[in-house]
């Protein structure tokens, strides 16, 4: 696929054409044209920052509606670890798992369980690839996309292990087939996502041909239904133990959790997209040495800060900490019985997508950049955003790419009108004389 698929969309009717999203977008993927925001999809990394900032809720993430579950005979829920952090006084993650069953799912498979396997694989991978340190986590799809368009030198540092969601989906599907004897197309693997990035990653996978996830629900969207379900069962005794993960697995929900699962101190964990970009710049310039592992999460606080979550990420982290208390380090039942297999690693190369490049060759690039500089001199350098581009420079580049014109700059138009009215005045003055 040439164009990136993004789950981030605009609800046109709600968009007022303000400049909030174009200013916030970390990859400068958004322009306002004809008073509506337009996402240049090849630049979009699905981070969801525009969804967060839009005061009119015009930006949203697509996801599958609950009703779409009905197309499957057997439905397995895959809760992301951040889901457990959305509720008060949970006591145990098992309540959520049983709550999902009570809601109508036939089975649950914890993504945090698969995360423990990924942790084990990562520990091994780091040991075997000391020539490629520091290795960079690929759990947050936004980061992988960002590296793909802006930090091509770091592609070789990416850890080519499939994400916990995709691993959970594979294992859940296998288990469902074994348990039910149903054909695979009757089984629905349903991921409950904290963010648009993971929706995008399911629809347009990174590193693999196809994800085993069939549907992606939004955490926010199912929240109230799940809450009702939890209340229905919370006083029941002897709930079946459906848990598959320990401390390591559920810690993946917050930043630093994945790194913690490596049981080594030689790592760096950064969260929040702007912080992440700074780290990637430094990594590319080889300014960060002697590190084994870099965990990067696009959202503040990690996945608990995902734009489709409900709870404040700081409180959510406290809740994960509380839940961890009575847990074993990991649920070895899973890590021990599952063998390492080729499907657990990426099967597709990650390619550099040079979306920022101007020009198809060096001569063209030079000429276009010179033109950008010439155009820039005409602008006032206010970066006011009124033209619909995030900065004067961005507008100049759009013009050179043939996607905008100088008249998009209101300051240029204003000066033009000034001059025009002066001319008219002079003309009138002449007539009177």
């Amino acid at each position, binding site marked *: 696929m040439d164009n990136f698929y993004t789950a981030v969309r605009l609800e046109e009717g709600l968009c007022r054409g303000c400049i909030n999203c174009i200013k916030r977008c970390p990859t400068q993927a958004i322009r306002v044209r004809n008073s509506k925001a337009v996402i240049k999809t090849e630049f979009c990394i699905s981070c969801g920052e525009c969804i967060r900032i839009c005061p009119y809720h015009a930006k949203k993430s697509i996801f599958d509606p609950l009703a779409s579950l009905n197309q499957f005979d057997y439905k397995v829920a895959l809760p992301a670890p951040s889901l457990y952090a959305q509720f008060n006084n949970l006591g145990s993650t098992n309540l959520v798992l049983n709550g999902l069953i009570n809601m109508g799912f036939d089975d649950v498979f914890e993504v945090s369980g698969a995360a423990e396997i990924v942790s084990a694989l990562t520990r091994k991978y780091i040991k075997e690839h000391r020539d490629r340190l520091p290795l960079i986590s690929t759990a947050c799809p936004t980061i992988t996309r960002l590296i793909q368009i*802006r930090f*091509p*030198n770091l592609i070789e540092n990416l850890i080519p292990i499939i994400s916990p969601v995709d691993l959970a989906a594979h294992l859940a599907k296998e288990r469902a087939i074994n348990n039910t004897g149903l054909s695979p197309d009757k089984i629905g693997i349903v991921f409950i996502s904290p963010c648009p990035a993971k929706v995008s990653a399911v629809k347009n996978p990174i590193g693999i041909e196809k994800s085993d996830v069939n549907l992606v629900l939004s955490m926010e969207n199912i929240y109230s239904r799940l809450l009702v379900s939890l209340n229905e069962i919370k006083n029941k005794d002897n709930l079946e133990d459906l848990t598959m993960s320990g401390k390591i697995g559920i810690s993946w929900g917050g930043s630093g959790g994945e790194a913690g699962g490596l049981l080594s101190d030689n790592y760096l964990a950064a969260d929040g997209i702007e912080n992440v970009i700074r780290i990637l*710049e430094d990594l*590319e*310039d*080889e*300014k960060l040495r002697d590190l084994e592992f870099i965990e990067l999460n696009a959202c503040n606080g990690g996945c608990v800060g995902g734009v489709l979550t409900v709870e404040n990420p700081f409180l959510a982290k406290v809740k994960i900490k509380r839940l961890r208390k009575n847990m074993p380090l990991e649920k070895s039942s899973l890590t021990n019985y599952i063998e390492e297999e080729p499907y657990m690693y990426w099967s597709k190369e990650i390619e*550099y997508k040079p979306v*920022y*490049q*101007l*020009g*198809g*060759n*060096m*001569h*063209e*690039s*030079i*000429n276009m*950049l*010179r033109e950008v500089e010439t155009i820039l001199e005409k602008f006032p350098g206010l970066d006011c955003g009124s033209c619909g581009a995030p900065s004067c420079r961005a507008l100049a*580049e759009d013009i050179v790419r043939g996607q905008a014109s100088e008249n998009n700059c209101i300051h240029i138009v204003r000066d033009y009108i000034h001059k025009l009215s002066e001319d008219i005045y002079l003309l009138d003055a002449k007539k009177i004389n």
Partner: protein
Amino acid sequence: MLNDHIHLSYEIVSEDFARAGEAASDVKRVLKKMNVKPDIVRKVAIALYEGEINMVIHSLGGTIDVYIMPNEIQMKLEDIGPGIEDIDKAMEEGYSTASETIRNMGFGAGMGLPNMKRYVDDLDIKSGLGQGTRITMRVIL
């Protein structure tokens, strides 16, 4: 032909650690807009950063001029002193005259000049005690 290049120019202020590295990252930003191979962008960024930091730490300030041409990138770093007494020695890995304070900031491993040499195709240093230092680096595209 003379017009077929991009010229970028930066003022480097001695001991201005808050802005140190700005020239290198700006050049990196520009190169990423161009048809330059990623590993070349990285080499230029690293070599220029080392040279820029050296100007901030060891010199009294100066200018950096970068010329991006279709077939090569040239970086000219020029400062007003105090100069390098023994260039061969300065080129040795591990040789540094950095003070204790500078070392505590994480610099002074004596790897800057050797790294510059490693990352560019051609490195030329003109200097002497009491005069400025002029460094020209070329990377062939």
